[in-house]
């Protein structure tokens, strides 16, 4: 069993720098967990504590049923892929992959078969005699993965493994690592600052900020139900539009009036939520994802859409879609619309948003109103 349990993990660096505050997470066997957050959020520190490269200030880490706080990294049965690969420059690819097994005094024939098997899976057999210097970034990445694979560890740790690759290769390796996870069938813990990697690879993602976990959940769940403004704007690209508004009663219905006077209607379930929590007449924040703003004509009587009026500042043609950057008084918003749009800079535009696609946040705490 290779489930992990992190309980009340805290890391304080000398000089009272708190890197991780109170990290609690149960990781199931064979999960692909992605720790994601901006730099300095403590995600790498957390990973390094799991690896044993960083001392744990407080709390407990269990791998399986074993408390590993005081267990040497080599005895934790984990493998790690480093951001810059950390291949041994003076060893060939084969030696790099065999090194861990050799140190563990494994039988030579067994080492050979493991290295060749891993090389076969990663399609690097032809590179086995080369030194890391003679490899491209993508090839080094594969060797680093291979070196972790041959050990057959309980847990795979990866620290931003794709950040040194070019954009195209990154997309390709993303799917390869996801495939590798299926094939190896072990627990993966993956650190990244890139929300796309988190969304596409993780079975669950852990969003962190300033040493605290913000939210844990499947990518889709987190995307649909962000717990606060930070998560809402961190996950998704381009990021969610956050607008100020006031909860009002408008012809018998609870709605939100934006700064420019636009009225945003809500689903009845959300109306109830706001009333219950006593937000009537108060300022709140609403979140609308760019892809939920449409240019289409709708029937305001039959369809559950509200309309935002605004002026285009920049129209960015991406090919498969067009991003409209708009100004609503002082607030900037982005809409991801159909590429067939005729709208260009300085055009007036009406955008529709479905009532169900509106996220509500408290203005003070920035937490989702539930």
């Amino acid at each position, binding site marked *: 069993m290779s489930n992990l349990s992190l309980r009340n993990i805290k890391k304080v660096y000398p000089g009272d720098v708190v890197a991780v505050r109170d990290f609690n997470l149960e990781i199931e066997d064979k999960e692909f967990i992605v720790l994601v957050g901006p730099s300095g959020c403590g995600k790498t520190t957390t990973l390094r504590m799991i*690896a*044993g*490269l960083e001392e744990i200030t407080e709390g407990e880490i269990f791998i399986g049923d074993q408390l590993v706080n005081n267990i*040497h*990294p*080599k005895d934790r049965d*984990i*493998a*790690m892929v*480093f*951001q*810059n690969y*950390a291949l*041994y*420059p*003076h060893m060939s690819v084969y030696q790099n992959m065999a*090194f*861990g097994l050799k*140190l*563990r005094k494994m039988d030579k024939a067994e080492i050979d078969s493991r290295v060749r098997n891993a090389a076969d899976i990663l399609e690097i057999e032809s590179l086995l005699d080369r030194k890391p210097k003679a490899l491209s970034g993508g090839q080094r990445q594969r060797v680093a993965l291979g*070196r972790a694979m041959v*050990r057959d560890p309980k847990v795979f740790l990866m620290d931003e493994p794709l950040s040194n690759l070019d954009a195209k290769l990154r997309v390709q390796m993303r799917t390869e690592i996801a495939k590798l996870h299926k094939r190896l069938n072990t627990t993966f813990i993956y650190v990244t600052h890139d929300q796309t990697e988190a969304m596409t690879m993780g079975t669950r993602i852990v969003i962190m900020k300033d040493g605290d976990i913000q939210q844990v959940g499947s990518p889709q769940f987190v995307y649909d139900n962000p717990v606060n403004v930070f998560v809402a704007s961190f996950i998704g690209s381009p990021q969610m539009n956050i607008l100020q508004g006031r909860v009002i009663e408008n012809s018998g219905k609870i709605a939100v009036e934006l700064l420019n006077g636009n009225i945003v209607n809500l689903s009845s379930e959300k109306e109830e939520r706001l009333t219950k929590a006593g937000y009537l007449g108060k300022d709140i924040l609403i979140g609308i994802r760019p892809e939920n703003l449409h240019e289409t004509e709708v029937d305001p009587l039959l369809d559950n859409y509200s309309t935002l009026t605004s002026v285009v500042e920049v129209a960015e043609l991406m090919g498969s879609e067009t991003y409209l950057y708009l100004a609503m008084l002082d607030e900037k918003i982005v809409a991801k619309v159909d590429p067939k749009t005729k709208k260009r800079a300085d055009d007036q535009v009406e955008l529709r948003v479905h009532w169900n696609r509106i996220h509500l946040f408290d203005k003070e705490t920035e937490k989702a109103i539930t």
Partner: protein
Amino acid sequence: MNMYRNKKIAVFFMLPAVIFVVLFIYYPIIQNFFYSLFRWNSFSPDRVFVGLDYYRRLFKDPVFYIALKNNALYAFISIIVQVGLGLVLAAILEEKAFRKYQTFFRTTFFLPAVISITVVGLLWQLIYNPNIGLLNAALKAIGLENLTRAWLGDSKTAMLSVIATSQWQYTGYIMILFLIAIQKIPEELYESAMLDGANAFSKFFYITVPQVADTIVVSMIITMIGGFKVFDEVYVMTAGGPGRSTEVLASYLYRSGFRNDEMGYAATIATIIFAITFVTTLIQLKASKANKEE
């Protein structure tokens, strides 16, 4: 025209250095060899051509072999102690647990290298002094009185005593070279090795040593050349004595040139020192290159 591709400008910029090297290094080497073919002294108005006579004499000279053996011992022990111990010390000081004490030890170990050799010589003469010396006093204090002796006065221990002083003086210097080299090794290599199952010893042998291989070669060459060129330590502490037991090539050169006033013979010894260091350096460089390509 691109300035960096202009060969004329490149040559022009290199010229000052080239002139210096030729004038003060290559020319004297050749001139020294030329001098070794003549019998002359500092007062003689003319030089007598003797061909390779001095070389024949040198190879039959028993003192030359004593000196050669002493130099070889000097170089051998220096390589083992300065390079070996220097590397180990540097690796220890770079270990996580020792890093906070590094500044203190680094300074302490390096300090002897900046002290003038005359001071060091006098200092160690006192330490080795049979009557008031620290070494004998220390041996007596721990009950090893039978090991006490006149360290520099006994032809059995004089050479090793001088060599020991050199190790004390220069191990710290070589250690600094290794500290710099080790600090350049990416930390992730050690971390990765740790996860791969490496303990302190395997980290040292599989990561540190191969990663500082270049520095090992360079410092081996430095200490080897130092071992064959050594003069001041010997001259200050024993001046080649007792008898000829601590004679080294350089002190023999000095004796031949300035005591016996046989400049030709002194030049011959100088040529031999050059030949030995030149050839051994070449061999070491070749060996390290072969190692790298393998």
